[in-house]
């Protein structure tokens, strides 16, 4: 954090700061542009004058032009369902890998890790066939199922569980706890920050996921926000950019607001998820 002997000095420092800010401006520009378009009447969407009147009409129009309320409910249900299942399944599996000796452990762990490379996003053709066979096509459950056993979650929690001191574990067992009670009373509480980190990463991933939900859903009742937004902007609107941009901001607002409020937690969570 401190300047250190290799921090830029003098003119070099000025150049560095200026470049960093130029890149920062480039990075925020498309967003500012979207905000400008969404909050002004259509005729000002590419005319940048300070006297342009602010309006919420675009948001109102977008909200009434498509069943966004329903899409919101679907996305929240989807994220909650996936996260709940992931937390339970990954905790149990990670506990097995970290704590128990059983034949095939190494091989099974390797088989789990396969999913890190071969993600469900790639296996769309076969998974679609499976969903059809199960009669689950066009349901929220079908969007979530392939992601519920997450190799990333299992891996992350296994690494965390392995750092739990043996003494704590043994003490709990001397007290007469069963293995599941040990898990619940010793391991899970110690891994709290990791759970938070994993949850934030998972929710933001599934809030944003698009291709698989697009394929497996085709009705308002099951579509998440991302797919709803695409259907809306591709067909209904012609090219009224003000309304499309308003809808875009609308669908990302909850995540964006949460991020701005809990910036530090988000950033630290992503960091934690990355450091093994």
């Amino acid at each position: 954090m401190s300047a250190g002997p290799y921090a830029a000095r003098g003119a070099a420092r000025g150049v560095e700061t200026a470049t960093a800010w130029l890149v920062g401006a480039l990075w925020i520009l498309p967003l500012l542009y979207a905000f400008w378009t969404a909050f002004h009447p259509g005729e000002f969407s590419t005319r940048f004058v300070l006297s342009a009147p602010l309006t919420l009409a675009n948001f109102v129009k977008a909200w009434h032009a498509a069943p966004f309320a329903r899409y919101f409910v679907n996305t929240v249900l989807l994220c909650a369902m996936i996260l709940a299942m992931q937390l339970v399944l990954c905790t149990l599996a990670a506990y097995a890998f970290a704590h128990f000796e059983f034949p095939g452990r190494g091989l099974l762990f390797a088989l789990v890790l396969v999913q890190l490379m071969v993600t469900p996003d790639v296996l769309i053709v076969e998974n679609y066939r499976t969903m059809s066979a199960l009669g689950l096509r066009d349901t929220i459950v079908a969007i979530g199922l392939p992601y519920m056993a997450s190799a990333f979650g299992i891996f992350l929690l296994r690494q965390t569980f392995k750092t739990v001191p043996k003494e704590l574990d043994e003490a709990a067992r001397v007290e007469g706890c069963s293995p599941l009670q040990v898990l619940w009373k010793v391991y899970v509480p110690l891994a709290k920050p990791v759970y938070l980190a994993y949850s934030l990463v998972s929710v933001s991933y599934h809030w944003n996921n698009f291709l698989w939900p697009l394929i497996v859903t085709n009705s308002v009742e099951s579509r998440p926000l991302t797919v709803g937004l695409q259907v809306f902007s591709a067909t209904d609107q012609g090219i009224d950019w003000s309304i499309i941009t308003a809808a875009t901001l609308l669908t990302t607002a909850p995540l964006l607001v949460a991020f701005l409020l809990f910036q530090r937690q988000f950033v630290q969570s992503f960091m934690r998820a990355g450091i093994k």
Partner: protein
Amino acid sequence: MTRTAQWLYGWLLLLPAAALLALFTHYPTVGTLWQSFHSTPRAGRSSVYVGADNYRALIDDPIFWQSLSNNLWYAGGTIPLSIGLALLMATWVNGRLAGRSLLRLAYFTPTMLPMIAVANIWLFFYTPEYGLLEKLTSAFGLPTHNWLGSKSTALGCLMAVTVWKEAGFFMIFYLAALQQMSPNLAEAAAIEGASRWYFFRRVTFPLLMPTTLFVLVNAVINAFRLVDHVVVMTRGGPDNATELLLYYIYEIGFRFWDPAYAATLTIVLLVVLGLAALGQFGFLERRVHYR
């Protein structure tokens, strides 16, 4: 606890996750291979074994080759650019820069947005005549240009979106690693008279190797996994110039309804991902410094 109890606990705890993984990762992987040797069932004709026919069709399919080469260009362009930028950004916001936390926020925000929303915003940005990019270029007196509509620039436009979205994400990991580095290293090197660049090349960069590898794995997977922006911005066009492998699989599988050929294309994608995994393992063995 007896040995048998250990076994039983291990297996039972693993069972639910293993069942789902088997059903939605391992079974479809094997199923894809199986499908690729069979024909697509058509009206009145069920699926039959066709040997390597699908693969022969693949070799003769110019759109497949184009999507593969597009995807390799796309990966080759976006991966080094976003990783390089991420490293630069991390060193900037790690240093004592004015407005550091605001900058970090600016760099990271695109990561939080859905690719689909990002693509919508950029689509407007690239719109001919009307979009911001056109306004800027015409202010400099340049002729108007259909950025997404011409073969020479469309893929580049998509790459810019990807770099914009991913650099801030990768920055976070570099930042975490930089913050863990001991300041004593820099002081010791400065006493020895090492230049700034020398210090970066011989100390910082090698120490960041595990992070670089982690980021690289992510970047490679994303380059072949994420095609949301293709769906929104170009639909593979103009003239297949932005056809990426997974998008082509989506088109064949769900717009032309030819699952057997889509499975064959998926095998190619799996081979590419497998090769990337192997390459990274080899790289990992030789080059990465562990703490």
